[in-house]
């Protein structure tokens, strides 16, 4: 059987823009960089690979279900979503749009690290509220695995950073 209206990768990616990180609802999973594979077979069956930001991220299962639900709405014959480590996520995989979305949520975006994490990335983080770099790292562990806690000496506010990961 030949399916005339076979869905394209682009259509799927566009639909997945609607799926947000449940813990940071301003960023889509596409901009977060965790969609690492989309395959469509001749019967219009879609396989999606998601890679975890952190191995212990509790939002991963939720996101898998959201992806499945969203793609099913596109009228495909079936959807399979799998966790995969073929490509390992790191914060450089967040898109420019994604970095802006993090900031919009009040989180300092991670600096591009090109594979090398330096202590300065954590210690003098730009405050997402006033832009000052006169800040201190309070603790590298925050309310979720992906955030660290900082304090801005300029506007005297605590803030969180989406922490850089290689």
């Amino acid at each position, binding site marked *: 059987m030949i399916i005339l209206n076979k869905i394209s990768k682009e259509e799927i990616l566009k639909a997945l823009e609607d799926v947000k990180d449940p813990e940071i609802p301003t960023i889509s999973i596409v901009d977060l960089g965790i969609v690492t594979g989309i395959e469509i077979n001749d019967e219009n069956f879609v396989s999606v690979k998601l*890679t*975890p930001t*952190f*191995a*212990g*991220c*509790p939002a991963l299962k939720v996101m898998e279900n959201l992806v499945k639900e969203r793609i099913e709405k596109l009228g495909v014959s079936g959807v399979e979503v799998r*966790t995969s*480590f*073929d490509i*390992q*996520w*790191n914060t450089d995989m967040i898109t420019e749009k994604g970095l802006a979305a993090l900031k919009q949520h009040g989180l300092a975006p991670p600096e591009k690290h090109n594979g090398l*994490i330096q202590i300065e990335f954590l210690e003098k983080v730009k405050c997402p509220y006033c832009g000052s770099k006169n800040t201190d790292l*309070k*603790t*590298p*562990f*925050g*309310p979720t*695995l992906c955030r660290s*806690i900082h304090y801005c000496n300029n506007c005297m506010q605590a803030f969180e950073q989406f*922490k850089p*990961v*290689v």
Partner: protein
Amino acid sequence: MNYSGEQLKAIKEFLYKIADDQLIIGHRNSEWTGLGPVLEEDIAFSSIAQDKIGQSLHIYELLHTLGEKDPDSIAFTRDAKDFKCCHLTEYPIGGYDFSLMRNFLFSHSDHARFEMLSASAFEALANIAKKYKGEIKYHIMHADTWIKQLGNGNEESRAKLQAALDTCFNMALGIFEDSEYVFELKELKVFDGENILQEKWFESISLVLGDSNLKIPDKSSWKPEYGGRKGQHTEYLQPLLDEMGAVLRLDPKAEW
């Protein structure tokens, strides 16, 4: 890659050992949730626990693809004798000095292990290892900061950490208990062996302890606490497993 029955046995045993370590130390670290000496440490230990338990999950999932049971059954229904974790991970949390030192010694071996495994010929494991080592870097950063701060603090803090190091050291040497499959794993280029790992570990902890005014026990006193890798455990493991699996045993069909 296709492995023979015997080769698969070697790999599975190796995976169980790594995942069981992560699961058990993860649960122990989680026992600091709500009890940490300061809020930041409470969150730090809870986050490190969450990472390590998550890391065990994906290795259990890998075992599942190799024909073992599903991750929840593996984690919550086995008895102590079927676990392959080392003794260091099993002991109760004790004081903060003990937990901090344990986590320092363990995380350095953890990082070195996954660094080695990043080059493993078993690709599925290598991919996981590449991911984990970035996460564990944060565990090391946390541990090193406290070991240096407290080691160079006052006499009381230094003495407490030194005592914790003396207590933990032989337990930590038990991490490197070799498997009967050591040659198979090496031949398959899955893992170069615990001896090499121990050397790497020793080098990295020595650097930090040297900067922290702490003394590694003299080699003549080294008595590695072995047995864990063969299913021989301390009296503390089974009660922990009973607690971890209580919900699942109460109602195996419950959604949680």
